[in-house]
């Protein structure tokens, strides 16, 4: 795709409505208010059931709720899936140079923004269609008879509701991004995962074997129903660790700590001002340079592959893999599926439900997922730094523009760029690999509430960033002069 082709569409893209930007400085209180309003609205919408949906429906996104947000069976069942997918597609196209855009130029930024929004609309429709016509969301036959219409009409009604829900999410996200704190996308992810963790700790409902699902009720159940002799055997300890959720608890706490540690670890490059003598500064290069962003991309890519596999399987094409519910159990789709806690790889547990999966197959699955995560982490991190203006060239320009230089080096962007080239690519690769390894560990151990390692990683990282944002906002409130300094309007 040439960017000239894209540019010729721009006038049409610009017809898409946008949320008005605030024309004045929005005080912190007001920002907070908008964020809360949208959050409440999000929870309200997630409790609005799709009109005409049969209870027999299957949730295509079930395993990926952690980062697609939304709620199955509700009007916002698509969640942020369309936004994330549209963004991945466009960023990959730009990152790979298929669409040539220079994102340091405002006019190209604008084209990027307009195209991205247009793509979200396309993805809303594209992700709704297989949900309904792939047979995952089924129309309610009782309602059809009551209304005296065919199932086709009900399907169309479902489609319209899904599309409306998807578009509402898009605009709610925009309201938070422009008028609130952070962005809607991150707000919805954090909301969903926090909810899953709370439920994972306190849920007293029982599973098929009569054991409570939540961590605390489960421990109470174990204390009531098992004695010390039963627990202190090797199988009892294993039961406690895996099914008792102790491993999940440990990995949840561990991820929290490691992510915060990694996010705050920086390689600092000393700077001095070229004109003001004695003015010193440091340029912090984050160790996890591209942060956990690559991981959403890897997992979202896997999610999309799995959905295609599932749709094909339900159409009777089994060469890519056979599914049990929404989980692949054989074929290439099994090996490509993301690991999600001990239940997806501990041979004794996997084979309880599916004895046909051999131990070496499980081994290959773990190996492949590890390679995908680490390699994917590195590749996407490199893409990221390049397309998002964190590459050596852009950073060098920024530092020079702010009047700073590295002491002992000439004040020249090219020199600075060469200096940064020694650090940034290495930090990017190491950071991508570290995040990949961390995700592997989290995915193997599982997390409380079964939120998937990636989801938790994302949440902690978003919350840490939100905390930094809040601190900045408050500083600006207290010292209005800082506002100009920190680059606010």
């Amino acid at each position, binding site marked *: 795709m040439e960017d000239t082709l894209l540019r010729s569409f721009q006038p049409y893209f*610009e*017809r898409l*409505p*946008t*949320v*008005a930007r605030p024309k004045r400085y929005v005080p912190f209180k007001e920002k907070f208010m*908008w964020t809360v309003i949208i959050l409440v*609205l999000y929870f309200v*919408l997630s409790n*609005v*059931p*799709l*009109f005409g949906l049969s209870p027999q429906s299957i949730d295509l996104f079930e395993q990926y709720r952690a*980062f697609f947000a939304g709620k199955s069976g509700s*009007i916002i069942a698509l969640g942020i899936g369309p*936004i*994330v997918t549209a*963004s991945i597609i466009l960023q990959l196209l730009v990152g790979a140079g298929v669409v040539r855009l220079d*994102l340091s130029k*405002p006019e190209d*930024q*604008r084209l*990027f*923004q307009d195209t*991205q929004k247009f793509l979200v609309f396309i993805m809303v429709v594209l992700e709704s269609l297989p949900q309904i016509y792939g047979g995952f969301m089924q129309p309610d036959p009782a*309602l059809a008879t009551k*209304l005296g219409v065919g199932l086709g009409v009900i399907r169309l009604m479902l489609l319209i509701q899904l599309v409306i829900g998807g578009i*509402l999410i898009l605009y*709610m996200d*925009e309201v938070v*991004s*422009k*008028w609130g704190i*952070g*962005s809607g*996308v*991150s707000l919805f*992810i954090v909301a969903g995962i926090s909810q899953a963790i709370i439920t994972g700790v306190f849920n007293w409902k029982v599973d098929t074997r009569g054991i409570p699902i939540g961590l605390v009720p489960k421990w109470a159940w174990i204390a009531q129903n098992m004695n010390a002799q039963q627990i202190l055997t090797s199988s009892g300890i294993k039961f406690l660790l895996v099914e008792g959720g102790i491993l999940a608890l440990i990995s949840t706490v561990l991820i929290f700590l490691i992510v915060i540690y990694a996010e705050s670890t920086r390689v600092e490059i000393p*700077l001095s001002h070229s004109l003001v003598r004695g*003015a*010193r500064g*440091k*340029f912090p290069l984050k160790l996890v340079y591209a942060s956990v*962003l690559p991981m*959403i991309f890897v997992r979202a890519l896997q999610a999309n592959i799995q959905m295609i596999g599932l749709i094909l399987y339900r159409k009777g094409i089994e060469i890519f893999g056979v599914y049990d519910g929404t989980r692949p159990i054989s074929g290439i789709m099994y090996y490509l599926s993301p690991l999600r806690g001990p239940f997806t790889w501990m041979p004794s547990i996997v084979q309880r439900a599916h004895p046909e999966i051999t131990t070496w197959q499980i081994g290959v699955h773990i190996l492949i997922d590890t390679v995908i995560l680490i390699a994917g982490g590195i590749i996407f991190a490199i893409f990221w730094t390049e397309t*998002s*203006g*964190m590459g050596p060239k*852009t*950073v060098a320009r920024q*530092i020079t*523009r*702010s009047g*700073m230089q590295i002491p002992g080096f000439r004040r020249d962007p090219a020199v600075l760029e060469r200096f940064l080239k020694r650090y940034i690519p290495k930090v990017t690769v190491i950071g991508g690999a570290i995040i990949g390894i961390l995700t592997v560990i989290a995915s193997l151990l599982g997390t409380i509430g079964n939120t998937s390692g990636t989801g938790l990683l*994302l949440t902690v990282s978003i919350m840490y*960033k939100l905390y930094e*944002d809040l601190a900045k906002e408050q500083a600006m409130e207290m010292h209005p002069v800082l506002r100009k*300094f*920190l*680059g606010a309007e």
Partner: protein
Amino acid sequence: MAKGKKKTQAPLMSSAGIMRYYEVEDSAIKVSPKSIVILSLVIAVLVIALNAYYQLWPRV
């Protein structure tokens, strides 16, 4: 010091990896945030009312 970097990084990180350039965006049609909230509520009430009318909500 060296605040230049933060400016490009902040919107990126807080939006979970989605790049946005709202400051350069422009459109012929502008909607106020209030109307988005009202529209969402109207749709929510409408769909719930439809469900309730046909006794599909609350489902036990």
